Protein backbone atom coordinates (compact mmCIF):
# COMPACT_ATOMS: atom_id res chain seq x y z
CA UNK A 1 0.00 0.00 0.00
CA UNK A 2 1.38 3.41 -0.91
CA UNK A 3 1.91 6.14 1.70
CA UNK A 4 -0.89 8.19 0.10
CA UNK A 5 -3.27 5.24 0.37
CA UNK A 6 -2.31 4.69 4.03
CA UNK A 7 -2.86 8.38 4.82
CA UNK A 8 -6.18 8.32 2.99
CA UNK A 9 -7.21 5.25 4.94
CA UNK A 10 -6.23 6.90 8.22
CA UNK A 11 -7.92 10.19 7.39
CA UNK A 12 -11.10 8.53 6.17
CA UNK A 13 -11.36 5.66 8.65
CA UNK A 14 -15.06 4.73 8.77
CA UNK A 15 -16.88 5.66 11.95
CA UNK A 16 -20.49 5.19 13.03
CA UNK A 17 -22.94 7.95 12.11
CA UNK A 18 -24.07 7.75 15.71
CA UNK A 19 -20.60 8.73 16.97
CA UNK A 20 -20.62 11.96 14.98
CA UNK A 21 -24.20 12.58 16.09
CA UNK A 22 -23.37 12.12 19.77
CA UNK A 23 -20.47 14.56 19.32
CA UNK A 24 -22.98 16.98 17.81
CA UNK A 25 -25.16 16.57 20.91
CA UNK A 26 -22.26 16.99 23.34
CA UNK A 27 -20.59 19.92 21.58
CA UNK A 28 -23.87 21.53 20.55
CA UNK A 29 -25.29 21.10 24.03
CA UNK A 30 -22.26 22.77 25.56
CA UNK A 31 -22.33 25.54 22.95
CA UNK A 32 -25.98 26.39 23.47
CA UNK A 33 -25.67 26.22 27.25
CA UNK A 34 -22.54 28.37 27.20
CA UNK A 35 -24.09 31.07 25.02
CA UNK A 36 -27.30 31.06 27.07
CA UNK A 37 -25.50 31.33 30.43
CA UNK A 38 -22.97 33.91 29.26
CA UNK A 39 -25.40 35.99 27.20
CA UNK A 40 -25.41 38.87 29.75
CA UNK A 41 -21.61 38.96 29.56
CA UNK A 42 -21.61 39.00 25.75
CA UNK A 43 -24.21 41.76 25.62
CA UNK A 44 -22.24 43.83 28.16
CA UNK A 45 -19.70 44.71 25.45
CA UNK A 46 -22.30 47.10 24.03
CA UNK A 47 -21.57 49.36 27.02
CA UNK A 48 -17.80 49.45 26.51
CA UNK A 49 -16.03 52.59 25.34
CA UNK A 50 -15.37 52.55 21.58
CA UNK A 51 -11.66 53.14 22.24
CA UNK A 52 -11.47 49.70 23.87
CA UNK A 53 -12.41 47.91 20.64
CA UNK A 54 -9.36 45.88 19.58
CA UNK A 55 -10.61 43.63 16.79
CA UNK A 56 -9.08 40.22 16.12
CA UNK A 57 -9.83 37.61 13.46
CA UNK A 58 -13.08 38.25 11.58
CA UNK A 59 -13.83 41.30 13.74
CA UNK A 60 -11.09 43.17 11.86
CA UNK A 61 -13.62 43.43 9.03
CA UNK A 62 -15.73 45.77 11.17
CA UNK A 63 -15.35 49.55 11.01
CA UNK A 64 -16.08 49.79 14.70
CA UNK A 65 -18.09 48.21 17.50
CA UNK A 66 -21.49 46.75 16.71
CA UNK A 67 -24.58 48.72 17.79
CA UNK A 68 -26.10 47.23 20.93
CA UNK A 69 -29.24 46.02 19.15
CA UNK A 70 -27.15 44.18 16.55
CA UNK A 71 -25.10 42.52 19.29
CA UNK A 72 -28.30 41.37 21.03
CA UNK A 73 -29.64 40.03 17.73
CA UNK A 74 -26.35 38.17 17.17
CA UNK A 75 -26.64 36.49 20.57
CA UNK A 76 -30.29 35.59 19.94
CA UNK A 77 -29.63 34.28 16.43
CA UNK A 78 -26.74 32.17 17.72
CA UNK A 79 -29.00 30.62 20.33
CA UNK A 80 -31.77 29.87 17.84
CA UNK A 81 -29.34 28.33 15.36
CA UNK A 82 -27.70 26.43 18.21
CA UNK A 83 -30.96 24.82 19.30
CA UNK A 84 -31.65 23.75 15.72
CA UNK A 85 -28.06 22.41 15.46
CA UNK A 86 -28.50 20.47 18.68
CA UNK A 87 -31.82 19.01 17.58
CA UNK A 88 -30.42 18.24 14.14
CA UNK A 89 -33.27 20.15 12.48
CA UNK A 90 -32.77 21.45 8.93
CA UNK A 91 -29.11 20.70 9.57
CA UNK A 92 -27.98 21.62 6.05
CA UNK A 93 -28.81 25.19 7.10
CA UNK A 94 -28.63 25.13 10.90
CA UNK A 95 -25.26 23.38 10.97
CA UNK A 96 -23.34 26.01 9.01
CA UNK A 97 -25.49 28.79 10.50
CA UNK A 98 -24.61 27.91 14.09
CA UNK A 99 -20.96 27.42 13.16
CA UNK A 100 -20.68 30.84 11.55
CA UNK A 101 -22.78 32.70 14.14
CA UNK A 102 -20.89 31.15 17.05
CA UNK A 103 -17.59 32.05 15.40
CA UNK A 104 -18.81 35.63 14.90
CA UNK A 105 -20.08 36.00 18.47
CA UNK A 106 -17.02 34.49 20.12
CA UNK A 107 -14.69 36.52 17.90
CA UNK A 108 -16.54 39.70 18.89
CA UNK A 109 -16.29 38.94 22.60
CA UNK A 110 -12.54 38.43 22.20
CA UNK A 111 -12.19 41.78 20.42
CA UNK A 112 -11.94 44.07 23.47
CA UNK A 113 -8.28 43.87 24.39
CA UNK A 114 -8.38 40.41 25.94
CA UNK A 115 -8.24 37.16 23.96
CA UNK A 116 -9.56 34.53 26.33
CA UNK A 117 -8.48 31.20 24.74
CA UNK A 118 -11.38 29.37 26.37
CA UNK A 119 -13.57 29.10 23.29
CA UNK A 120 -11.13 28.31 20.47
CA UNK A 121 -11.56 24.53 20.46
CA UNK A 122 -15.34 24.81 20.89
CA UNK A 123 -15.69 27.15 17.91
CA UNK A 124 -13.49 24.98 15.69
CA UNK A 125 -15.28 21.78 16.71
CA UNK A 126 -18.64 23.38 15.90
CA UNK A 127 -17.22 24.47 12.52
CA UNK A 128 -16.32 20.87 11.72
CA UNK A 129 -19.64 19.47 12.91
CA UNK A 130 -21.66 22.20 11.22
CA UNK A 131 -20.11 21.44 7.84
CA UNK A 132 -20.30 17.64 8.14
CA UNK A 133 -23.18 15.11 8.13
CA UNK A 134 -23.50 15.24 11.92
CA UNK A 135 -27.30 15.02 11.86
CA UNK A 136 -27.59 11.78 9.89
CA UNK A 137 -28.43 10.07 13.18
CA UNK A 138 -30.02 11.05 16.49
CA UNK A 139 -31.72 14.06 14.98
CA UNK A 140 -35.06 15.40 13.88
CA UNK A 141 -33.81 15.29 10.29
CA UNK A 142 -33.07 11.55 10.53
CA UNK A 143 -36.47 10.53 11.87
CA UNK A 144 -37.89 7.59 10.01
CA UNK A 145 -34.57 6.81 8.33
CA UNK A 146 -32.44 3.78 8.94
CA UNK A 147 -29.18 4.50 10.75
CA UNK A 148 -26.46 4.72 8.06
CA UNK A 149 -23.89 2.74 10.05
CA UNK A 150 -20.10 3.06 9.64
CA UNK A 151 -18.86 5.18 6.75
CA UNK A 152 -15.81 7.29 5.95
CA UNK A 153 -17.92 10.46 5.71
CA UNK A 154 -18.58 10.15 9.47
CA UNK A 155 -14.97 9.30 10.25
CA UNK A 156 -12.97 12.23 8.87
CA UNK A 157 -14.89 14.89 10.88
CA UNK A 158 -14.08 13.00 14.07
CA UNK A 159 -10.44 12.70 12.98
CA UNK A 160 -10.35 16.44 12.26
CA UNK A 161 -11.82 17.28 15.66
CA UNK A 162 -9.05 15.17 17.26
CA UNK A 163 -6.42 17.00 15.20
CA UNK A 164 -7.81 20.38 16.27
CA UNK A 165 -7.61 19.41 19.94
CA UNK A 166 -4.10 17.99 19.54
CA UNK A 167 -2.73 20.96 17.61
CA UNK A 168 -4.16 23.43 20.13
CA UNK A 169 -2.14 21.91 22.96
CA UNK A 170 0.94 21.34 20.84
CA UNK A 171 1.00 24.97 19.68
CA UNK A 172 0.62 26.20 23.28
CA UNK A 173 3.68 24.17 24.27
CA UNK A 174 5.66 25.19 21.22
CA UNK A 175 4.95 28.86 21.93
CA UNK A 176 6.30 28.55 25.47
CA UNK A 177 9.57 27.13 24.17
CA UNK A 178 9.76 29.58 21.29
CA UNK A 179 9.29 32.60 23.59
CA UNK A 180 11.26 31.55 26.65
CA UNK A 181 13.28 28.53 25.60
CA UNK A 182 14.25 26.12 28.34
CA UNK A 183 14.12 29.05 30.79
CA UNK A 184 10.40 28.30 30.97
CA UNK A 185 11.33 25.14 32.85
CA UNK A 186 14.51 26.13 34.67
CA UNK A 187 13.65 29.67 35.76
CA UNK A 188 11.04 30.95 38.21
CA UNK A 189 8.69 31.97 35.39
CA UNK A 190 5.93 29.44 36.10
CA UNK A 191 6.07 30.20 39.82
CA UNK A 192 5.91 33.94 39.08
CA UNK A 193 2.99 33.43 36.66
CA UNK A 194 1.05 31.50 39.32
CA UNK A 195 1.77 34.23 41.87
CA UNK A 196 0.94 37.03 39.43
CA UNK A 197 -2.34 35.52 38.27
CA UNK A 198 -3.54 34.85 41.80
CA UNK A 199 -2.44 38.32 42.92
CA UNK A 200 -4.46 40.11 40.24
CA UNK A 201 -7.53 38.03 41.13
CA UNK A 202 -7.17 38.98 44.81
CA UNK A 203 -6.61 42.66 44.04
CA UNK A 204 -9.51 42.79 41.59
CA UNK A 205 -11.93 41.06 43.95
CA UNK A 206 -12.23 37.67 42.25
CA UNK A 207 -11.85 34.10 43.48
CA UNK A 208 -8.22 33.09 43.61
CA UNK A 209 -6.45 29.83 44.45
CA UNK A 210 -5.36 29.59 48.07
CA UNK A 211 -3.41 26.48 47.05
CA UNK A 212 -1.56 28.46 44.39
CA UNK A 213 -0.71 31.15 46.95
CA UNK A 214 0.65 28.44 49.24
CA UNK A 215 2.66 26.65 46.56
CA UNK A 216 4.58 29.75 45.40
CA UNK A 217 6.42 29.56 48.72
CA UNK A 218 8.00 26.30 47.50
CA UNK A 219 9.99 27.16 44.34
CA UNK A 220 11.35 23.63 43.89
CA UNK A 221 7.84 22.45 42.87
CA UNK A 222 7.66 24.49 39.73
CA UNK A 223 10.32 23.08 37.39
CA UNK A 224 8.71 19.58 37.60
CA UNK A 225 5.27 21.17 37.05
CA UNK A 226 6.68 23.00 34.04
CA UNK A 227 8.07 19.73 32.65
CA UNK A 228 4.69 18.03 33.14
CA UNK A 229 2.90 20.90 31.43
CA UNK A 230 5.20 20.78 28.41
CA UNK A 231 5.02 16.96 28.28
CA UNK A 232 1.22 17.11 28.00
CA UNK A 233 1.29 19.92 25.44
CA UNK A 234 4.16 18.77 23.24
CA UNK A 235 3.14 15.11 23.62
CA UNK A 236 -0.34 15.82 22.24
CA UNK A 237 0.39 14.56 18.69
CA UNK A 238 0.91 11.07 20.14
CA UNK A 239 -2.85 11.00 20.72
CA UNK A 240 -3.33 10.79 16.95
CA UNK A 241 -2.01 7.22 17.16
CA UNK A 242 -5.40 6.42 18.68
CA UNK A 243 -6.39 3.60 21.03
CA UNK A 244 -5.07 3.53 24.57
CA UNK A 245 -2.39 6.19 23.89
CA UNK A 246 -5.10 8.66 22.87
CA UNK A 247 -7.21 7.92 25.92
CA UNK A 248 -4.22 8.22 28.28
CA UNK A 249 -3.25 11.55 26.73
CA UNK A 250 -6.84 12.82 26.97
CA UNK A 251 -6.91 11.89 30.65
CA UNK A 252 -3.55 13.62 31.26
CA UNK A 253 -4.70 16.74 29.42
CA UNK A 254 -7.91 16.79 31.44
CA UNK A 255 -5.81 16.37 34.60
CA UNK A 256 -3.70 19.34 33.48
CA UNK A 257 -6.85 21.49 33.46
CA UNK A 258 -7.85 20.22 36.90
CA UNK A 259 -4.40 21.28 38.07
CA UNK A 260 -4.74 24.72 36.48
CA UNK A 261 -8.09 25.13 38.22
CA UNK A 262 -6.62 24.06 41.55
CA UNK A 263 -3.49 26.23 41.39
CA UNK A 264 -4.69 29.26 39.43
CA UNK A 265 -8.51 29.18 39.71
CA UNK A 266 -8.70 29.34 35.91
CA UNK A 267 -11.63 27.48 34.38
CA UNK A 268 -11.50 26.13 30.85
CA UNK A 269 -15.02 24.69 30.88
CA UNK A 270 -14.94 22.90 27.52
CA UNK A 271 -11.92 20.69 28.37
CA UNK A 272 -12.83 20.46 32.05
CA UNK A 273 -16.18 18.91 31.16
CA UNK A 274 -14.26 16.49 28.93
CA UNK A 275 -15.99 17.57 25.74
CA UNK A 276 -12.77 18.84 24.10
CA UNK A 277 -11.48 15.25 24.35
CA UNK A 278 -14.73 13.46 23.45
CA UNK A 279 -13.66 12.87 19.80
CA UNK A 280 -10.99 10.44 21.06
CA UNK A 281 -13.64 8.15 22.51
CA UNK A 282 -16.38 5.88 21.15
CA UNK A 283 -18.99 8.25 22.53
CA UNK A 284 -21.84 6.41 20.78
CA UNK A 285 -21.46 3.84 23.57
CA UNK A 286 -22.27 6.40 26.27
CA UNK A 287 -25.22 5.34 28.40
CA UNK A 288 -28.15 7.14 26.84
CA UNK A 289 -31.01 5.68 28.92
CA UNK A 290 -32.17 8.97 30.41
CA UNK A 291 -32.16 10.87 27.12
CA UNK A 292 -33.84 7.82 25.53
CA UNK A 293 -36.75 7.97 28.02
CA UNK A 294 -37.11 11.69 27.37
CA UNK A 295 -36.93 11.23 23.62
CA UNK A 296 -39.62 8.48 23.70
CA UNK A 297 -42.00 11.10 25.01
CA UNK A 298 -41.01 13.76 22.47
CA UNK A 299 -40.14 11.84 19.30
CA UNK A 300 -40.81 8.10 19.43
CA UNK A 301 -39.17 7.36 16.08
CA UNK A 302 -35.97 9.05 17.15
CA UNK A 303 -35.95 7.30 20.54
CA UNK A 304 -35.63 3.89 18.92
CA UNK A 305 -32.19 4.90 17.67
CA UNK A 306 -30.96 5.69 21.18
CA UNK A 307 -31.12 2.02 22.21
Amino acid sequence: MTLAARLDGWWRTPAPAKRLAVLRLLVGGFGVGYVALRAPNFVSYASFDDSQFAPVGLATLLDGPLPGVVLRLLVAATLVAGVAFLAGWRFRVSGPAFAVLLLALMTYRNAWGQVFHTENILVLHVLVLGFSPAADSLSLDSRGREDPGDEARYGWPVRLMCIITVLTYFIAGETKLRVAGLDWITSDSLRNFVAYDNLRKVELGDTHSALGGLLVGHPWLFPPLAVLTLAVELGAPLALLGGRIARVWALLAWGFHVGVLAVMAIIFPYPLLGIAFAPFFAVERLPLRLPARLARRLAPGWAARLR
Partner: protein
Amino acid sequence: MTFERLWSYGLGAALIVALLLPLAGDPRADSFPFSTYPMFSGRQSPEATIPHAVVIDADGERSALPPVAVANDEVIQAFETLRQAVRQGPDATARLCARAADWYAGGHEGQARVEIVSDTFNAVAYFDGEKQPVSTEVHASCEVPR
Protein backbone atom coordinates in the same frame (compact mmCIF):
# COMPACT_ATOMS: atom_id res chain seq x y z
CA MET B 1 -12.97 11.82 -6.67
CA THR B 2 -16.43 12.45 -5.17
CA PHE B 3 -17.53 15.85 -3.85
CA GLU B 4 -17.67 14.39 -0.34
CA ARG B 5 -14.06 13.20 -0.54
CA LEU B 6 -12.97 16.56 -1.97
CA TRP B 7 -14.81 18.37 0.79
CA SER B 8 -13.18 16.22 3.51
CA TYR B 9 -9.71 17.06 2.22
CA GLY B 10 -10.53 20.70 1.51
CA LEU B 11 -12.03 21.53 4.90
CA GLY B 12 -9.43 19.45 6.70
CA ALA B 13 -6.49 21.07 4.93
CA ALA B 14 -7.92 24.58 5.35
CA LEU B 15 -8.43 24.21 9.10
CA ILE B 16 -5.12 22.48 9.73
CA VAL B 17 -3.19 25.10 7.75
CA ALA B 18 -5.06 27.91 9.51
CA LEU B 19 -4.23 26.35 12.89
CA LEU B 20 -0.53 26.03 12.04
CA LEU B 21 -0.08 29.45 10.36
CA PRO B 22 0.43 31.35 13.64
CA LEU B 23 3.56 29.26 14.18
CA ALA B 24 5.16 31.16 11.30
CA GLY B 25 4.60 34.57 12.88
CA ASP B 26 5.30 36.43 16.09
CA PRO B 27 4.44 34.03 18.92
CA ARG B 28 3.03 36.89 21.01
CA ALA B 29 0.72 38.14 18.23
CA ASP B 30 -2.62 36.70 19.27
CA SER B 31 -5.88 36.23 17.40
CA PHE B 32 -9.09 34.21 17.46
CA PRO B 33 -9.84 31.40 16.85
CA PHE B 34 -6.37 30.70 15.42
CA SER B 35 -3.87 31.51 18.13
CA THR B 36 -0.38 30.81 19.41
CA TYR B 37 -1.83 30.56 22.94
CA PRO B 38 0.83 32.91 24.31
CA MET B 39 -0.68 33.19 27.78
CA PHE B 40 1.87 32.39 30.46
CA SER B 41 4.53 31.74 27.83
CA GLY B 42 7.05 34.51 28.53
CA ARG B 43 9.66 35.07 31.16
CA GLN B 44 7.74 36.46 34.12
CA SER B 45 9.41 38.39 36.91
CA PRO B 46 7.93 38.48 40.41
CA GLU B 47 7.18 42.19 40.02
CA ALA B 48 3.52 42.71 39.09
CA THR B 49 1.71 45.97 38.38
CA ILE B 50 -2.01 45.69 38.98
CA PRO B 51 -4.34 48.48 37.86
CA HIS B 52 -7.53 48.91 39.94
CA ALA B 53 -10.51 51.12 40.29
CA VAL B 54 -10.80 52.04 43.97
CA VAL B 55 -13.39 54.05 45.84
CA ILE B 56 -12.57 56.34 48.78
CA ASP B 57 -15.61 57.12 50.89
CA ALA B 58 -16.29 60.19 53.06
CA ASP B 59 -14.40 58.58 55.97
CA GLY B 60 -11.36 58.00 53.82
CA GLU B 61 -11.92 54.24 53.66
CA ARG B 62 -10.41 52.82 50.49
CA SER B 63 -11.75 49.71 48.80
CA ALA B 64 -11.35 48.08 45.39
CA LEU B 65 -14.30 48.18 43.03
CA PRO B 66 -15.38 44.88 41.44
CA PRO B 67 -14.70 44.06 37.76
CA VAL B 68 -18.25 44.98 36.74
CA ALA B 69 -17.59 48.62 37.71
CA VAL B 70 -15.15 49.04 34.82
CA ALA B 71 -16.08 46.25 32.42
CA ASN B 72 -18.22 43.18 33.10
CA ASP B 73 -18.19 40.15 35.39
CA GLU B 74 -15.00 38.79 33.84
CA VAL B 75 -11.99 39.75 36.01
CA ILE B 76 -9.46 39.29 33.21
CA GLN B 77 -11.52 41.57 30.94
CA ALA B 78 -11.65 44.18 33.71
CA PHE B 79 -7.89 43.88 34.18
CA GLU B 80 -7.23 44.36 30.48
CA THR B 81 -9.73 47.23 30.27
CA LEU B 82 -7.88 49.01 33.06
CA ARG B 83 -4.47 48.30 31.51
CA GLN B 84 -5.69 49.49 28.12
CA ALA B 85 -6.99 52.76 29.58
CA VAL B 86 -3.70 53.39 31.40
CA ARG B 87 -1.81 52.77 28.13
CA GLN B 88 -4.10 55.10 26.19
CA GLY B 89 -3.50 57.99 28.56
CA PRO B 90 -5.34 60.55 30.72
CA ASP B 91 -8.48 60.90 28.58
CA ALA B 92 -9.10 57.15 28.61
CA THR B 93 -8.47 56.78 32.35
CA ALA B 94 -10.73 59.78 33.01
CA ARG B 95 -13.56 58.14 31.03
CA LEU B 96 -13.05 54.85 32.84
CA CYS B 97 -13.02 56.66 36.17
CA ALA B 98 -16.34 58.31 35.27
CA ARG B 99 -17.83 54.94 34.28
CA ALA B 100 -16.75 53.38 37.59
CA ALA B 101 -18.09 56.39 39.52
CA ASP B 102 -21.46 56.12 37.76
CA TRP B 103 -21.60 52.43 38.60
CA TYR B 104 -20.83 53.16 42.25
CA ALA B 105 -23.43 55.93 42.40
CA GLY B 106 -26.06 53.49 41.16
CA GLY B 107 -25.82 51.40 44.31
CA HIS B 108 -24.43 53.64 47.04
CA GLU B 109 -25.25 56.92 48.72
CA GLY B 110 -22.96 59.49 50.27
CA GLN B 111 -19.90 61.36 49.20
CA ALA B 112 -17.13 59.36 47.60
CA ARG B 113 -14.29 59.57 45.10
CA VAL B 114 -13.09 57.00 42.60
CA GLU B 115 -9.50 56.62 41.50
CA ILE B 116 -7.83 54.58 38.80
CA VAL B 117 -4.53 53.49 40.31
CA SER B 118 -1.73 51.06 39.55
CA ASP B 119 -0.14 49.24 42.46
CA THR B 120 3.13 47.41 41.99
CA PHE B 121 3.78 44.36 44.15
CA ASN B 122 6.26 41.55 44.52
CA ALA B 123 3.76 38.80 43.63
CA VAL B 124 5.67 36.00 45.37
CA ALA B 125 6.31 38.02 48.55
CA TYR B 126 2.63 39.02 48.55
CA PHE B 127 1.65 35.45 49.41
CA ASP B 128 4.32 35.43 52.09
CA GLY B 129 2.51 38.26 53.87
CA GLU B 130 3.96 41.36 52.21
CA LYS B 131 0.65 42.73 50.99
CA GLN B 132 1.56 46.42 50.75
CA PRO B 133 2.44 47.65 47.26
CA VAL B 134 6.02 48.75 46.70
CA SER B 135 4.71 51.70 44.66
CA THR B 136 1.41 53.27 43.66
CA GLU B 137 0.52 55.58 40.78
CA VAL B 138 -2.78 57.42 40.46
CA HIS B 139 -3.90 57.81 36.86
CA ALA B 140 -7.29 59.46 37.33
CA SER B 141 -9.52 60.73 40.10
CA CYS B 142 -13.19 61.68 39.90
CA GLU B 143 -16.06 62.42 42.25
CA VAL B 144 -18.98 60.02 42.47
CA PRO B 145 -22.03 61.87 41.12
CA ARG B 146 -24.81 62.51 43.64
